[in-house]
């Protein structure tokens, strides 16, 4: 049976009944967006900002593949050289908002292409307190 999921940080990633959502900042004065939420706009320098759930669909803007295990700490996923599996990393451009850096569920360079449509999902990093600790990722979609 699948374990219940625990967000890596609930002020960054909300696990809702309708799926995962990233929490970002929108500037009410200049409509600039930043992820994660911060209390100041890095475009207009103002502070009239709000917390919003960012869009969940976008297009791949840049990508690479993480080919070696990151150092743990800080990495919370599988870091042993024997068991490590490469994962994609990219920026996904969310229309009218921003570009979010995230893991990608696809790690085959042959299957990754700038401009391809992507959708927000989660990936499991490890188990914690009998729950699956998850972080956000984007997966290719139709």
């Amino acid at each position, binding site marked *: 049976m699948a374990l219940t999921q625990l967000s890596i940080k609930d002020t960054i990633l909300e696990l809702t009944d309708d799926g995962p959502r990233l929490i970002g900042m929108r500037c009410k004065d200049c409509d600039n967006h930043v992820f*994660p939420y911060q209390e100041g706009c890095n*475009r207009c320098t103002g502070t009239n900002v709000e917390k919003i759930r960012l869009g969940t669909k976008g297009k791949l803007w840049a990508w*690479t*593949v993480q*080919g070696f295990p990151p150092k743990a700490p800080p*990495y*919370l996923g599988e870091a042993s050289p024997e068991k490590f599996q490469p994962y994609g990393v990219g920026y996904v451009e969310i229309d009218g908002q921003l*570009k979010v*850096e995230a893991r990608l569920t696809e790690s085959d360079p042959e299957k990754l292409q700038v401009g391809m449509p992507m959708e927000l999902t989660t990936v499991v990093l490890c188990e914690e307190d009998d729950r699956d600790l998850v972080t956000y990722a984007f997966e290719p979609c139709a």
Partner: protein
Amino acid sequence: MTRIAIVGIGIHPFGRTEGVSGQDQGSYAVRAACKDAGVEWGDIEFAYGGSMAAGAADTMVSKLGLTGLQFINVANGCATGGSALLSAYSTIKSGAYDLGIAIGFDKHERGAFRVKTASTGRDWYGGTGLALTTQFFGMKINRYMSEYGISQRTLARVSAKAFRNAELNENAWRRKPLSEEEILHSAMLSYPLTQYMFCSPGEGGVALILARADQAHKYTDKPIFLDAAVVKSRRFGSFEVLAPSLALDWSAGPTVDTSKKAFELAGIGPEDVDVAQLQDTESGAEIMHMAENGFCEHGEQEFMLEKGETEIGGRLPVNTDGGCLANGEPVGASGLRQVYEIVHQLRGDAGTRQVPNNPKVGYTHVYGSPGISGVNILSR
């Protein structure tokens, strides 16, 4: 206006030196620089120094000698060395002092930089498997290659050149030449970049002694003038390392801004530069930085590398000492190593790696975390 001259240079070999602290590598470089300038540590009126991972610079006075000089620690990410140099340059310009030193050193653990992004609570960014500087470089060059038609072969050419040049540099770390095939077929670390296309965090130390130009001949027959020293942070819309999100807007990164400002201060253009050291954290960075610093148009690098234009005997020699790729990147020392190499090239005493035809103008460029750039222009 007061001109500033570099009158003494010192280096501790880069790489791995077991049993010698980063700070002691810095002190070693200081003593070498003093010897080069023919001065005693007690003659130095002020110092700026820093490291990222090897502790405070100013405590080295307990070994060098407690002379009471003004010593200020500098910490400015990948531009730590450049910031120390800029601070020393500005201090002499201000008229406060006439003779000072800029010091950079470091000693990092093995492997990719371990970036800590949370001071409290869970480190979600690094925990997720992001927060690796290598990922940024992979993404930036991957996009750039498809946009401007750069091949993976060209990436390999940059690395092969670095190791070839380093074979001629007794202070470099990786001095064994590698073929383009060996580079292309080494482990894929961050697509499209392989193991030998990346530099490694390492160790080393560099010190540079600066003086008012009108007093430079007291210390050296070959003063090298520092005509511009500029450090800039990023503007809104640029594509930077360690960024959980980017704006939809686009602006050129800090390298472009820093380079323009430096050329403006020096009153020359890219066409006047005879030898350049450009940040080559990985081979793609050198390629992109050639264009970002104004030395070519985007995409021309493919042809330039094929023709060997950035080789020691080429039209614009780049990273003649092997760059970061062959020297490793002890962050605090890295930017000053570039200046150290340019001083040798402009003095004409770079030995077997000397750029021919008496180069007159040299250029150094650093880029790094957290979206910062430093450029220096030097002449003789």
